[in-house]
């Protein structure tokens, strides 16, 4: 099978976010970059599928500037066969990202299945998978926490909120967006991380993909950090008094109950 995985490089959750002086983006100088957590599930699922279907190739795609090469190498270290960087600006919007990924998959051969994450934790848009599927004219199943591989079709369980589950059947090729629960991503071993350093990473230019600034529909600007929090009001006293006071606050000050 020809398996594709789309991964986005994002700042690690524990990184402190600093704004650029013009406030039209973040200061990237001290950022620790990682593969977005749900995209690791997508990689893992692709590798497991290849283990079931030995003639498969796993190709990992990431749209972004030079820095995303590190994340592609990490995917190779986990076990992917090929990695391709789509040379787009780091602030490309979901329209540009989805278009470039669709164009790349079209160029690189008949896909049987495309895995994405449920959402990328930087923009949290949860958009690229579905848009990509429209451009590829493939069905798309989102928020998937289990997949049964059948003959030319898959049966997925998707998490539709509140603990309810939908069971969806879709023919292949299809786009599947991975949710927590799908699997436990493996760790890349130190040896494989070193080996991956020497592997080639192909590059597709925006031009080759037919994506230009004209495809940009949105741009993020005027970033703001949340206003500084007022210090926490500690409610003192014996537990019964603390409880009474907190319930009073909830009822009278916040008017929530």
């Amino acid at each position, binding site marked *: 099978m020809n398996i594709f995985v789309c991964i986005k490089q994002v700042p690690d*959750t524990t990184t402190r976010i600093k704004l650029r002086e013009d406030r039209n983006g973040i200061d990237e100088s001290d950022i620790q970059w990682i593969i977005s957590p749900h995209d690791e599930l997508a990689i893992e699922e692709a590798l497991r599928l290849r283990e079931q279907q030995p003639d498969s190739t796993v190709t990992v795609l990431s749209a972004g500037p030079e820095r995303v090469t590190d994340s592609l190498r990490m995917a190779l270290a986990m076990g992917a066969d090929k990695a391709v960087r789509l040379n787009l600006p780091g602030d490309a919007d979901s*329209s540009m990202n989805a278009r470039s990924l669709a164009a790349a998959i079209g160029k690189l051969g008949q896909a049987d299945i495309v895995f994405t994450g449920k959402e990328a934790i930087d923009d949290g848009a949860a958009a690229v998978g579905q848009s990509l599927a429209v451009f590829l004219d493939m069905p798309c199943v989102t928020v998937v926490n289990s997949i049964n591989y059948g003959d030319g079709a898959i049966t997925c369980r998707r998490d539709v909120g509140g603990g309810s589950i939908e069971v969806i059947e879709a023919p292949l090729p299809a786009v599947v967006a991975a949710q927590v629960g799908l699997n436990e991503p493996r760790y890349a071993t130190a040896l494989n991380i070193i080996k991956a350093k020497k592997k080639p990473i192909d590059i597709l230019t925006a031009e080759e993909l037919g994506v230009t600034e004209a495809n940009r529909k949105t741009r993020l600007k005027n970033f703001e950090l949340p206003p500084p929090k007022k210090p*926490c009001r500690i409610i003192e006293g014996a537990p019964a008094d603390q409880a009474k006071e907190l319930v009073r606050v909830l009822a009278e000050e916040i008017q*929530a*109950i």
Partner: protein
Amino acid sequence: MKILIIAEHKNGALSEAAMELFGLPFGQAEVHAVAAGEGVEPLAGPLGQLGVAKLHLINSPALASYTGESFGQALGQFIQQLAPDVVLAAHTPQGRDLAPRLAAVLDAALATDCIQVSLDGGQVTARRPVYAGKATAEVEFNGDSLKVITVRPRTVKAPEPDASRSVEVTEVAVELPGQKTALKEIIASDNVRPDVTEAAIIVTGGRSLGSAENFSIIENFADSIGAAVGSSRAAVDAGYRPYRDQVGQTGKVVSPQVYIACGVSGAIQHLAGMRTSKHIVAINTDPEAPIFQLADYGIVGDLFEVVPQLTEAAKNRNRS
């Protein structure tokens, strides 16, 4: 300016998050709503009371249950005909699945999970959280193509229904040939409480509860104030709670009016899911726990003593 609201519904009732969309500041815009499904006529009553100019009903057996493919096709066709400037949906599991499909089909600009939307004076501006709520950013729309916007639940208040209002209803026919995906089964949740993503109040317990049984302390308090029960990942991983309750980076992102964290340290991955809550309360034995840095109100104490007292106090208040 022409605006279209997608009126999400379930079991014959409008979803709360969809009703909130009608409370956005529309200025002079011409506001339409659309409901798609099978047998959606009865929704005309409640929708008409929310103050829209026109209501469009897309009725088809093929739309009896939501699938991204069928709703994407149906609404895609309809939106092309109506040609609005802005399409609004709630950022619910359904809305977030659907909106990017519509954006791609209609070659539209997309802004999801917005926490501020202004449509006044023909100008559309939106603001959304980025980096798991560590910052927010304004979405600038390039050009004047269609804008598809999803709004985070609880961003605005739903307007009061007004029975004296009426609405012009039109039936829309769509064609839905060749559906590839099929919904085989819906396994309904056994959750008897509100879902964390929809609740106005969430009481969350962490690892410190020590067992699934002990979570009854959290449940009792939640029930006394009509809250949802949330959980840290540590408590989910320990098997105390189902994954559906997990709040955080790899769980749900929530924005309730009040978030009450009991015995939760406030790890950064947990904060990623609840940082934008309006009021945060922390109950923790450790005065240095990071959660207190984000909390508005805090009780330094043992949750096993404090939380049952809270249940009592809430019940007493209900009685009086």
